[in-house]
């Protein structure tokens, strides 16, 4: 028996693992999963009565998972300071980050502007495509940290907002 906790979709999920002959039996809440190792990170299992081949691979403290083409990530709760990048920053609403490293081609707001949720704020060009970044909350522009033509990474916020609740 092996009890563990993982963070999946921002929620803690507890599992109990048991070796069952060649297979693994895992209890998650009321649900029981039987996983047959096929080798090479692949497992066969029944999901809602249908047989599926699912995949999981661990890198540092993150598990990357494919279940019927749905891609999931599970983290060990101890994974402090998970670098995460865009994934983590998606939860932050008062800072606007570039989705990936690139060049700023347009800034549509200025300090003091009131912005609505989903309002376009900045366009970053990366991989030869323009990516529009929108406000994730209603608020007032507190700071614009870059200018058109600047190169940006995903760590420094381009725009900072004062969120209106």
């Amino acid at each position, binding site marked *: 028996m092996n009890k563990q906790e*993982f963070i999946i*979709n921002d929620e803690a999920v507890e*599992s109990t693992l048991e070796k069952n002959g060649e297979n693994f039996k895992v209890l998650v809440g009321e649900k029981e999963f039987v996983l047959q190792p096929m080798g090479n*990170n692949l497992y066969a299992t029944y999901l809602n009565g249908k047989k599926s081949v699912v995949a999981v691979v661990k890198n540092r403290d993150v598990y990357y998972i494919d279940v019927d083409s749905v*891609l999931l990530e599970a983290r060990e709760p101890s994974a402090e300071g998970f670098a995460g990048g865009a994934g983590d920053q998606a939860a932050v609403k008062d800072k606007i980050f570039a989705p990936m490293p*690139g060049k700023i081609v347009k800034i549509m707001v200025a300090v003091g502007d009131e912005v609505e949720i989903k309002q376009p704020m900045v366009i970053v060009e990366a991989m030869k495509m323009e990516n529009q970044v929108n406000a994730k909350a209603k608020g007032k522009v507190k700071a614009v940290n870059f200018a058109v033509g600047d190169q940006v990474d995903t760590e420094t916020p381009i725009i900072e907002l004062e969120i209106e609740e």
Partner: protein
Amino acid sequence: MEKLFKKILVANRSEIAVRVMNACKVLGIPSVAVYSEADARSKHRWYADEAVFIGPPPPRESYLDIEKIIEAAKSTGCDAIHPGYGFLAENPLLPQRCEEEGIVFIGPPAGAMKLLGNKIESRIKMAEAGIPLIPGMKSSGTDFEVVKKAAEETGYPVMIKAAAGGGGKGMRIVREPGELKEAYEAAQREARNAFDDDTVYLEKYIANPRHIEFQVLADTHGNCIHVFERECSIQRRHQKIIEETPSVALDDARRAAMGAEAVKVAKAADYVNAGTVEFLYDESGNYYFLEMNTRIQVEHPVTEMVTGTDLVVEQIRIAAGLPLNEHLGNLTQRGHAIECRIYAEDGENNFMPSTGKILHYSEPCGPGVRVDSGITAGMEVGIDYDPIMAKLIVHAPNREMAIVKMIDALHNYKILGVKTSKKFMVDVLSHPEFAAGRTFTDFIEKHLAEREVDLTGYAGIAAALASVASVATPANNFNGGGTERKMPSPWELLGSWQIGDSIHE
């Protein structure tokens, strides 16, 4: 078999480079790869018989540097260059330089490429040849007032396009006059960055169209045929993601008419080699010439699957001066083929490009399942190049079976470490409107804009997999692999057996 060329240099990277190398193998011709610093671990480097390092990651300093490509070909003794798609594939300077160096360019002549690469000039030429065109600007420009006037004359909605365009870059739909200026500026910026040319033009936007294109092949002996259509209506950001053939929209008469029109386009441009004539097909069955692509297309495999051809082999044969293979005159469409493009992008977040290391890679297989891939496990997917990693293609006796087969193949195509839009494509393929064949270019915008994947139902299996992976060792992960597997003894395999009268289980 007589060798058509001594050696072929493949001036490209990733999946299309590997694809071209496969055609070289079939013809018994050694191939040479070129690779940048960013591709030191890429599949195409290892797949070729030889590989030449051509410089730093930025395309301008490697894959787009014509002199480096020519030098690589000369230093390895290549007598032909295949450009793949993208990069230098539609740059007429490459065939020109090849000619000067006595190297054969596997593609169209520079003249045809130049004409068809210029969307304005090719429109004029095709109008003269009697090919139906979408109403729009007669010439391109960079002056906003000219564009504005043309928009008013054509009538909204209009489409702004880059004159040097392709791949959805520099394209914008404008539904009302108030949106024109911003769209015009954005299109110019994108065009400038992608093609180094901010000339744009404008045309009438056709609602509910299908994108239907015809593959053509033309040899140096004056033969020109079409190899049927591909429907590529499923697009995001004006880029195709799912393609199929045959198109459900065409009956035999319409197919024959459009195919004949495509051949007419190729002939009007004095075209040689493989090319694709793109049409917009509207609800009433009208079709309009869009452009002719002067390269092998990303989606060429679906044509190969239903016709049993190898289009890259045909390209090489044509470039060697051979007449079109005789069997090409009697082709039929057998069954149905679908292709899904596997991009490194987040299908759940506006198709934002995704980067990272590929931690796990395994391909689906089975009858009628084809994977054209440029990636391997351990490879780093960066931001230097187009995010296409692979193409998954299926072939089945009919469309319904092809859809089922594709969904299953997507589920069994495991790429972990970077995001892909596999689930998004599964949702497209499972949509009742897709099943009904009502595939128009606004399909995604119309049916899947509000789509969200409910992940709550997946938390359980995800936790189960994480816990198994947390204790996985090579021994139990590779259950049954290598020499660790205890082979059953012959006695165990015998089943029930008898000695005398007693039965042993």
